[in-house]
């Protein structure tokens, strides 16, 4: 029998960008837990991700999922200098806001707010979009993320120079580049393989 798409159950679609916890409902059949091989399970990297329909769907191509996940973790969690975690999350949230990924923006705006303790600024990014006034250092990071996310890409020497003037060294600038680039990867999977839903209750 040919494969078919999934029809998500009745749910409330979020109508605004939010820092609230959202669910994600797949449009294609994730692997069933009891049908997963050792290779599928290993590709999740974090065992707890077996609960996630998103990761069980991506596990259908386990080599791609595992490499994706390990790339993600080093870009965001590697604490050897460079950009503070809060600002890597800011680049992720700004990219997601610009591309229109409500689910990704919710997760990474939450992280950006927690690590920076600047909830009001993060919320302004969600409410007003990528032209929100967030202070020069954050404005420079958001502008660089947006220019890198445009297709064709509009990121240029002026963005590097502005980030330097805002106090970023070249490793930190490379972190902005990688965080924004990575969310151009993540946004496209999240937006095209399923949809967000407001959490129950």
């Amino acid at each position, binding site marked *: 029998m040919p494969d078919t798409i999934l029809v998500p159950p009745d749910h409330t679609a979020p109508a*605004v960008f939010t820092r609230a916890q959202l669910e994600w409902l797949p449009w294609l059949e994730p692997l069933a837990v009891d049908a997963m091989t050792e290779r599928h399970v290993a590709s999740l990297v974090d065992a707890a991700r077996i609960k996630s329909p998103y990761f069980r769907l991506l596990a259908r191509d386990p*080599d*791609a999922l595992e490499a994706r996940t390990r790339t993600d973790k080093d870009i965001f969690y590697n604490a050897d200098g460079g950009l503070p975690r809060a600002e890597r999350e800011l680049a992720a949230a700004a990219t997601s806001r610009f591309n229109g990924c409500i689910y990704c923006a919710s997760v990474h705006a939450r992280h950006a707010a927690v690590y920076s303790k600047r909830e009001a600024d993060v919320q302004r990014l969600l409410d007003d979009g990528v032209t929100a006034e967030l202070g020069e250092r954050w404005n420079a990071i958001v502008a660089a993320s947006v220019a890198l996310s445009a297709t064709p890409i509009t990121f240029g020497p002026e963005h590097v120079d502005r980030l330097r003037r805002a106090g970023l060294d070249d490793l930190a600038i*490379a972190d902005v*580049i*990688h965080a924004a*680039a990575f969310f151009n990867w993540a*946004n*496209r999977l999240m937006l095209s393989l399923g949809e967000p839903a407001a959490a129950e209750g």
Partner: protein
Amino acid sequence: MPRTDADVIDTLVGIVPGSPLDAIRARRPEARSQAQATYRALFEPDEPRDMTGAERFAVGAFIAGLHGDRETAAFYAEHLAAAGATVTVCKAVDAAIAEAAARGPYGHYPGGPLTRENADGPTYRPSASTRGALGPRLAAAFEHVHLLVFHPRDAQPAALQALLDAGWSTTAVVTLSQITAFLSFQVRVLAGLRTLAGRT
């Protein structure tokens, strides 16, 4: 198919050992090696399963071309030819890039206050001659790739149904989606690092 042992990002940026960007990439060693591992998994997999090598590189060349990155598009086009694609298919990829040019991201939001940010833009349907040269399976893939590259927030389940109808399995759709999403990452890392290299 020849294996690409050299790091693709280093090669396409022109990063040489001992350079400032080599030192910067060395500080994020897993990001560097696993981006390369993703390239291998998606373009030179141990088992191609239900997406051929030529299909993978055709999509890769199309995506890089949509971003206006000629050098990266040429890299994937060379691998497409090496994977045994006919001249007809190689030319159809170039024709598709020219037909499908747009500026993104655009698209629509669910009903509510965000609809004031709705932005219209083109939906790509290959010309009859391009469709004929690509074949129905690859033509369906290119339509989906264009959606993901330029207006991913317009994605709906019907777009996935169109791929299934064109003979793509669920697992192959996951691989196609990963190729599109990964290339969207790779061309941005390339653009960013090339720019940074020019200012170092």
